């Protein structure tokens, strides 16, 4: 248990790919049991930052703490123990296209539990019910629409009832009603399972809807963090320009 009540902490994280510096001394704490939304420009390193939290990407410099333990120097084998506490929804869902929906959602259950097959299948239908997709067990991912794939991805992410769920742009590319549905799912999942959620988004409305805590990533750093109200009232011009979607301001658009 970390002293600050943060389940995940990124400390002074630097990351570059070739000559391109993506994260430049980023500091961020994710409070336990809440939904934190990270907003910021497309291509601004939000996904990169998210992938640091689960050890998919390692920083060039800095620390990533999960419950106070630095995961940066862990081997894949050691990381597996940490990763079991996480669920992650990928941008394009990343379902295994060689398996049907049922096997996809059952995958983490079969890998990490010794539950009898009957119970696994029950859990799969329960999770698919939770994301509003009952009865699609035998479809292949290629037969589903983008929104359905994301919901199956969410069902897979929550299959093991993780403590922490990471969402990589859950609503990008979806139509407004579906975005709203996904946002509601995120909020419901958080309430039902009492998990810590980290959501990456550039959908401002959704961010204010699901987030109890909002952080803005700009030029490789977190420039503001606080409750939705605090972010709305922020005096930072970059934050104001971003949340109001204005073309003019300190953010160079073109």
């Amino acid at each position: 248990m970390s002293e600050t009540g943060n389940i995940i902490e990124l400390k002074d994280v630097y990351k570059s790919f070739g000559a391109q510096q993506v994260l430049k001394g980023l500091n961020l704490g994710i409070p336990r049991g809440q939904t934190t939304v990270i907003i910021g420009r497309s291509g601004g390193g939000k996904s990169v930052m998210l992938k640091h939290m689960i050890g998919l990407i390692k920083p060039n410099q800095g620390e990533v703490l999960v419950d106070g333990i630095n995961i940066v120097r862990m081997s894949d084998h050691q990381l597996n123990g940490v990763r079991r506490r996480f669920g992650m929804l990928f941008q394009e869902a990343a379902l295994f296209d060689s398996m049907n929906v049922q096997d996809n959602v059952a995958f983490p259950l079969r890998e990490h539990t010794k539950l009898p097959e009957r119970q696994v299948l029950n859990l799969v239908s329960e999770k698919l019910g939770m994301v509003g997709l009952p009865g699609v067990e035998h479809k292949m991912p290629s037969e589903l629409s983008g929104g359905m794939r994301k919901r199956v991805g969410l069902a897979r992410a929550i299959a093991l009832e993780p403590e922490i769920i990471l969402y990589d742009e859950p609503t990008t590319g979806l139509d407004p009603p579906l975005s709203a549905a996904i946002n509601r799912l995120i909020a419901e999942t958080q309430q039902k399972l009492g998990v810590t959620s980290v959501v990456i988004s550039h959908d401002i409305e959704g961010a204010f809807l699901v987030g109890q805590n909002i952080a803005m990533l700009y030029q490789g750093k977190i420039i503001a963090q606080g409750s939705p109200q605090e972010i709305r009232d922020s005096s930072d011009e970059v934050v104001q320009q971003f949340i109001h979607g204005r073309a003019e301001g300190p953010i160079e658009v073109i």
Partner: protein
Amino acid sequence: MGWLRPMEMVGGKFLHWLEEAGELLLLFLQSVLWMMRPPFRLQLLFKQMEFVGVGSLGVTILTGAFTGGVFALQSYHGFSLFGAESLVGSTVALALTRELGPVLTSLMVTGRAGSAMAAELGTMRVTEQIDALYVMAVNPVQYLVVPRILASVAMLPVLTIIADFVGIVGAYVVGVGLLGINHGIFISKIIEYMDFSDISMGLVKAAFFGLILSLVGCFKGFYTSGGAEGVGRATTRAVVLGSVLILASDYVLTAMMF
């Protein structure tokens, strides 16, 4: 310093090549490590054995039969100049078991299965399915690479022995059936000149080529970047690099073994 450019290019290529060789070796070491850790994924292994082995049976038989046949035809023309037609059978049999069986089979399987491994893993990489495995605390090297390597190492010798046999049958059909070499002589010369070690060394080579083609295929797929184009590039490079490594290592192995 314009005159240094060519050197830079050569040096850069060399460094890139070294880097790639290092990464390939690392993937191999990781695979060995994860091979020995439970869980042992037998189902995935059998699936890959079916894909690499059973799936390549058709092309292996065709390759073997025609190679044996054409080899008999060519050597007959040469040997008949000095009346040594009786040696056609043993020549073909030795060439097939020691060289052509393992090498041609491996090249065909590289084109068929090595490329498929690169394409499949490459697609999984660019669609984040490999990341998803990591996230679900399943090591992708263990889940994807290990079964493919084990299956290839196990199945290539099996395919090779089939190619050897079918090749000799092909040579028999051409030599005895079409060209009129005496049946008894054809067979007895094979038995006289061929040792068991000719076959077994060929099979050792085949197993090694199986390691190469699967490792290269998985390596190119595993480190794919750049979307659909990247997957295409990975597939091509897997076949080219795999084939080149098979041919080059064939020389080294042969020099060491025989």
